[in-house]
């Protein structure tokens, strides 16, 4: 969904140009990205109504600032994700929402494999406790790479860094997690 062909990107750009003149033309972009943006926000909090509200705020902000949007050859979604991130962290600062980490059991198993640990129940609990000790930037990288299964290219586009830099930073975040985990164990 995130990575698209050049034709798709050009089609998207034509929607954006139309929407810059007439907000009603933003409809197809809203339909296309609403679910992705909602899932990104809800992944980091646990209040569904607030997550829907923040999603709406993201689109309102995107539409009111659409005249500032500049096409840089990356999907429009990366711009929306940046707005979503800013709205989300604003809600954390305002204490409207609580920062939450949502994950599945198999995500833990995968991380255990990455940090070369045996998978035991008490170790999983230790890993959970270690995850919350990570700083926000590292947690974001782990979240995007392992819980949301995003490619490094996509992570790079969302964080406005290169694909290679995203790879390096994620590796470092994983190393920090490993270090914290070993110290805890």
């Amino acid at each position, binding site marked *: 969904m995130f990575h698209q062909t050049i034709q798709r990107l050009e089609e998207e750009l034509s929607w954006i140009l139309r929407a810059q003149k007439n*907000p*009603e033309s*933003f*409809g197809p972009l*809203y*339909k296309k990205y*609403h*679910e992705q943006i*909602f*899932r990104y926000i*809800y992944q980091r909090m*646990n209040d*569904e109504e607030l997550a*829907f509200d923040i999603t*709406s705020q993201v*689109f*309102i902000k995107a*539409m*009111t600032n659409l005249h500032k949007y500049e096409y840089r050859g990356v999907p429009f979604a990366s711009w929306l994700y940046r707005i979503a991130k800013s709205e989300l*962290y604003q809600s*954390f*600062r305002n204490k409207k929402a*609580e*920062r*939450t*980490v*949502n*994950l*599945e*059991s198999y995500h833990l198993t995968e991380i255990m494999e990455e940090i070369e640990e045996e998978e035991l129940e008490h170790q999983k609990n230790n890993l*959970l406790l270690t*995850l*919350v*000790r990570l700083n*926000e930037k590292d*947690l974001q990288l782990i979240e995007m790479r392992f819980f949301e299964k995003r490619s490094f290219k996509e992570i790079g586009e969302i964080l406005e860094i290169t694909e290679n830099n995203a790879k390096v930073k994620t590796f470092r975040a994983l190393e920090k997690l490993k270090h914290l985990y070993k110290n805890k164990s």
Partner: protein
Amino acid sequence: MKPKKIILNRTEFSSNCIQNRQDFNSILKQIELIIKPPIKRPYFYGAVGFSSLAIAFFTLCLNTQLNEKKIIKKNALKSEKIQPEAE
């Protein structure tokens, strides 16, 4: 900012459920309120009306003052003209 909660295996929303919550019309309505041109906003007319009234009032006051000054000047001239004749 540290996360306060970790939630394991939460039931996620289905795509249908999220799509049912899409409401582009309400987004458009809010956008209209935000980016409505000033000329279409009610307060614009309030401001314009108030300024027009203020301008009209000041013009009237200024006019009255000018008229009064003119009358005084005329009267003074008249009295000046009358005085030498009396002498």
